């Protein structure tokens, strides 16, 4: 799945929140998942993003890709959502049942193992810094190439590598706390 929408509106042209939604809804949707928004909250948080997009549209000056600008909004909205979720003590997400309609495994032991692995991963990701989490998920889970991540973040590829390195280190530290014995020796 590509992060970038098929067309980037030209800077300086009139922008409209509906057209932006048509072009970039999938991008926002996937970005919010990478930023840890739970499936049950995705639609509401997505609406928050587009309310902000609509409100802030006049401030978009075309100095970055529109997707980079939108991603910044996703980041801030997700951060606010995360703060509120922590306050409500709704996290971690790992205790929630599967919500995405994943077909059950034929073998219950595999299903249990996969769910436990996802639960551990969710707990670790929830404790990572949001920006590190996003770049980590883009690379390690969604397997996006560094060049594509760089385009979204609006940074050079070298910066993506350095952020990924920091994110991997943080992930390993957190994983080591979650599952002692893991998370060490992987940083080759």
């Amino acid at each position: 799945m590509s992060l970038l929408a098929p067309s980037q509106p030209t800077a300086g042209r009139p922008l409209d929140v509906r057209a932006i939604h048509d072009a970039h809804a999938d991008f926002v949707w996937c970005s919010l998942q990478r930023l840890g928004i739970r499936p049950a909250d995705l639609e509401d948080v997505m609406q928050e993003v587009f309310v902000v997009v609509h409100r802030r549209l006049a401030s978009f000056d075309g100095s970055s890709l529109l997707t980079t600008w939108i991603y910044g909004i996703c980041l801030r909205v997700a951060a606010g959502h995360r703060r509120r979720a922590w306050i409500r003590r709704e996290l971690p997400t790992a205790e929630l049942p599967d919500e995405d309609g994943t077909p059950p495994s034929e073998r219950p032991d595999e299903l249990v193992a996969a769910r436990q692995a996802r639960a551990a991963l969710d707990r670790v990701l929830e404790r990572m810094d949001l920006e590190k989490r996003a770049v980590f998920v883009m690379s390690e889970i969604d397997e996006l190439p560094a060049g594509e991540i760089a385009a979204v973040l609006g940074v050079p590829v070298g910066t993506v590598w350095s952020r990924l390195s920091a994110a991997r280190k943080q992930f390993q530290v957190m994983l080591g706390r979650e599952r002692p014995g893991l998370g060490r020796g992987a940083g080759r």
Partner: protein
Amino acid sequence: MSERGRLRDEGPDEVRAILRAARRSRPMTDAERARSRARVVGIAAASAAAAGLSWAPAAAFGAGLGAVAIVAWTVVPALVAPAAIPSTAPSARHAAPPPEARPLPPLPPAPPTPLVASTQPAVAAPPAPARDPSPSMPAAPSTSADAPPPPPAPAGDSLAREAELLERARAGLAGRPAEALAITQAHAAEFPAGKLSVERELLAIDALGRLGRATEARARAEGLLARARGSLYEDRIRAILGGLPSQSADPSSNR
């Protein structure tokens, strides 16, 4: 595909297993996309309704803002969720909308086509709903010489109705284009100068194309393109035009 240093490829076995058990980000379903777009249409419509009040004199503005608030509460419920929107200007939530791209002017009513379902003329609209918050609100003033012509009275119910109709059309577009087209025609009859008329026309063009009526679709798309040049709609219209079969391959061109 492997990139250097990825834990999922080069990490210890158990770390790789954890990362590979993770669910990737999943794309939106059609239903989720339709719901999301309906909400975004509501956001834009509520703002457009607020902008439509700008010609009103200050004396009527306060009462008018109440009507706009009803639109926002009706069409965009999440707008009023406290602390739901991290923003550097939270006080703007219920104030006048920010400057934004000027919407395209309403389209004239679409030409009739054989698929029109029976529709009632807009003049038969029912009286204002009982929840009108300001029954004693002074009547809309006449326009001054330099003011734009007054828009149709913005009403939350009509905006919500417009959005609802068009989302029904959009939902049926892929599987039931004839029904989608009929809904756009019903919309045109009910809202001849509706705020979502450009959206309506895009849906109608798309439906005509899906029905194999490429000549009609092309003609309407070119008409819309002439009005929408330079806007973001231009790309969408050109994409639809590009997807239409050539004139010679269009069975409807011989009719």
